[in-house]
């Protein structure tokens, strides 16, 4: 068999072109891997070099073509070394790169143009190729680890063989052999092309496999990391195919949450296992995940393998696996939180029920009390009504007796008759006050703005007849506006003024003053007289029913007035108090909350 250099060269150029295509595709796909660009450059440079060879006999461009041919080949093989360095994650030694390429190009140019010598050129080329092949082999040998080891070793062997071949060729040329006709079919000239043909194919395949292996390793690693990540997550993670609901993957968290082993769930559907109490709830999760791509924190009730319930907060996301829609769901166990919330809601409900019960009971009691009060008031009215009928008879008939028959009575008889009528009148007042006292406890309380000054003046007019008012110094100060029941507060002022007038009647100035102020959220109203006063030690007794400090001062005191005052004021949420000293007048005061809250 005769091997024609031209044919070989054409074949070589062709395969080189194919390799350039392959390495281009690889570069396009794995640009992120360093070195793939340099590999492409290697292949392209060597290919271009082989094309340049075809022009070496050209009249004018021949020498340039020869220079380009060998220069490109040496540059290319150095690029292979640089690519391997980069692929292994480090920068090539640029100075070494230059230290090989630049002297070679200089020597090559010298032997081409200055002292043309084809044999020496071939020797220099062989030396450069040996050096670059050894550099590449050394680089591969260094990194002959892991998944790339077999490929690296094969490539090292190929590169060493290639280096050995060119070392031999260089040595032979150095000791006197000649290149001769470069186009001839002598084995000596054909061999480099065969070597180049084999080596470039071998290296290209090697590079493809190396990159492939690395991709595989990375994918494996990524998958492993993903798996570990999945199993590290304490939540349950499920990957479910949407079309049939079959679970494609589950993590340890799922095993921990549900008690099912991974191999029990993978290949089956969670509804088939009965993980979800309401399978439609899971469908809703799917729908939402598919509709909006992702969904978060939907609470689903589930059942563990042993039947115990749990509550999961499900977040899900649509994921496509080989074009098929899947849902990746993460289930966070919120059973505890859920139970706590339930308990909280339950106790909240219980408290509300208790409160409602309490309110109901308070309302019932209040209603009962109101009814009792009304009953009592009606009773008091009825008693008063019945008692006043005989009183009217006593008073009326003794009055008629006095008017029509007094001529037949002596002075003592008339005096006694007057006493009878006085007694009847006093009892009448007593009954009126009793009725008022009962009413003060049960009448509905209105809340309105009350002008105490107006009430005080009106009450004074009730208490002191018009013809007697001249004799009084009655002063009403600047009184604040109060909130409460005007009719009842007028009763209060009437009793306080009646009391003041009664005791001030004997006072030096016959003076009564009503004054007021606002103090700590209360409206305070004082009725001050210049009367006989009282012993402060007895102040506490003043406001009790039928208590009177001064006995025998005529028939106009019933002992109920101040008790009525206290009852009304306390129903307004206020308080009463009295200050006095014997002979120095008295001050009776009541205070009402400014806000008007009352009847508590």
């Amino acid at each position: 068999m005769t091997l024609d250099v031209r044919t070989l060269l054409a074949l070589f150029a062709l395969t080189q072109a194919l390799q350039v295509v392959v390495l281009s595709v690889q570069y396009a796909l794995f640009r992120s891997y360093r070195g793939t660009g340099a590999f492409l450059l290697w292949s392209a440079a060597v290919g271009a070099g082989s094309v340049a060879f075809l022009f070496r006999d050209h009249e004018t461009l021949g020498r340039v073509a020869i220079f380009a041919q060998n220069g490109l080949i040496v540059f290319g093989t150095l690029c292979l070394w640089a690519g391997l360095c980069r692929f292994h994650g480090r920068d090539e030694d640029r100075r070494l790169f230059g230290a090989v390429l630049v002297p070679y190009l200089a020597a090559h140019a010298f032997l081409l143009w200055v002292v043309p010598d084809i044999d020496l050129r071939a020797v220099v080329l062989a030396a450069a190729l040996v050096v670059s092949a050894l550099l590449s082999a050394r680089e591969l040998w260094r990194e002959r680890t892991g998944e790339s080891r077999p490929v690296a070793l094969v490539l090292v062997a190929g590169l060493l063989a290639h280096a050995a071949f060119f070392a031999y060729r260089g040595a032979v040329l150095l000791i006197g052999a000649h290149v001769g006709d470069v186009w001839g079919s002598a084995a000596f000239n054909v061999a480099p092309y065969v070597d180049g043909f084999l080596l470039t194919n071998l290296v290209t395949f090697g590079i493809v496999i190396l990159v492939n292996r690395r991709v595989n390793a990375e994918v494996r690693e990524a998958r492993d990391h993903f798996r570990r990540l999945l199993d590290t997550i304490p939540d349950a993670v499920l990957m479910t195919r949407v079309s049939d609901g079959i679970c494609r993957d589950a993590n340890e968290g799922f095993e921990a949450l549900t008690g099912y082993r991974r191999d029990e769930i993978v290949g089956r559907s969670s509804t088939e296992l009965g993980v979800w109490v309401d399978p439609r709830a899971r469908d809703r999760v799917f729908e939402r995940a598919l509709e909006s791509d992702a969904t978060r924190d939907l609470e689903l009730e589930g059942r563990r393998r042993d039947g115990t319930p749990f509550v999961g907060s499900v977040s899900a996301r649509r994921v496509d696996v080989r074009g098929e829609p899947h849902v990746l769901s993460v289930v966070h166990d919120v059973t505890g939180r859920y139970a706590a919330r339930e308990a909280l809601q339950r106790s909240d409900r219980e408290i509300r029920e208790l409160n409602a019960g309490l309110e109901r009971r308070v309302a019932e009691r209040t209603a009962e009390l109101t009814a009792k009060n009304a009953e009592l008031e009606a009773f008091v009215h009825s008693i008063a009504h019945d008692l006043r009928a005989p009183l009217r008879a006593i008073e009326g008939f003794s009055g008629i007796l006095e008017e029509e028959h007094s001529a037949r009575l002596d002075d003592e008889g008339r005096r006694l008759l007057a006493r009878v009528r006085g007694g009847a009148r006093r009892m009448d007042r007593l009954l009126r006050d009793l009725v008022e006292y009962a009413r003060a406890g049960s009448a509905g309380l209105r809340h309105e703005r009350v002008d105490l000054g107006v009430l005080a003046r009106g009450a004074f007019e009730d208490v002191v007849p018009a013809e007697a008012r001249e004799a009084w110094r009655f002063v009403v100060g600047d009184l604040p506006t109060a909130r409460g029941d005007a009719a009842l507060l007028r009763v209060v002022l009437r009793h306080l003024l009646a009391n003041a007038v009664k005791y001030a009647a004997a006072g030096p100035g016959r003076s009564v003053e009503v004054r007021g102020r606002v103090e700590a959220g209360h409206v305070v109203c004082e009725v001050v007289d210049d009367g006989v006063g009282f012993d402060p030690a007895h102040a506490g007794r003043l406001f009790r029913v039928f208590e009177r400090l001064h006995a025998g001062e005529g028939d106009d005191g019933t002992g109920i007035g101040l008790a009525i005052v206290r009852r009304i004021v306390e129903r307004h949420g206020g308080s009463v108090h009295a200050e006095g000293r014997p002979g120095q007048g008295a001050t009776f005061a009541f205070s009402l909350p400014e806000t008007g809250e009352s009847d508590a």
Partner: protein
Amino acid sequence: MPEEVWILLVEDDDDDAELALRALARCELAPRVVRARDGEEALDVLLGRGEAAAGTVPPPALVLLDLKLPKVDGIEVLTRFRADGRGRDVPVVVLTSSMLPADVRACYQAGANSFVVKQVEFAEHARTLREMAAYWLQVNVRP
């Protein structure tokens, strides 16, 4: 012959009745006063039925009505009197010793023209009655 002006006093208590009669006797007008002792008697007179009705054909010019009455109580009397055609325009003054607000309300609802509390002091009470009679019989204009 001019129509006789008379007053119907509905009062079960003899003492109160006598006091009222004495007080009204002192009126300028000195109208005739017919007394009914209970609610039933009052209705007989007012609605013109039975013995009691004899000689009382024109309706009274004024009715003084106590509330707490035997047999038929005052409010019932008032209600039935108002329901009857004859009683529609006759002034009715409730005269009682009750001051229960509920009673006051009920009386006005039943159609009372006035609500007066009986006073214990006779002089006052008598004056009130006299003035009232004068007002309803002389001042007030009826249809």
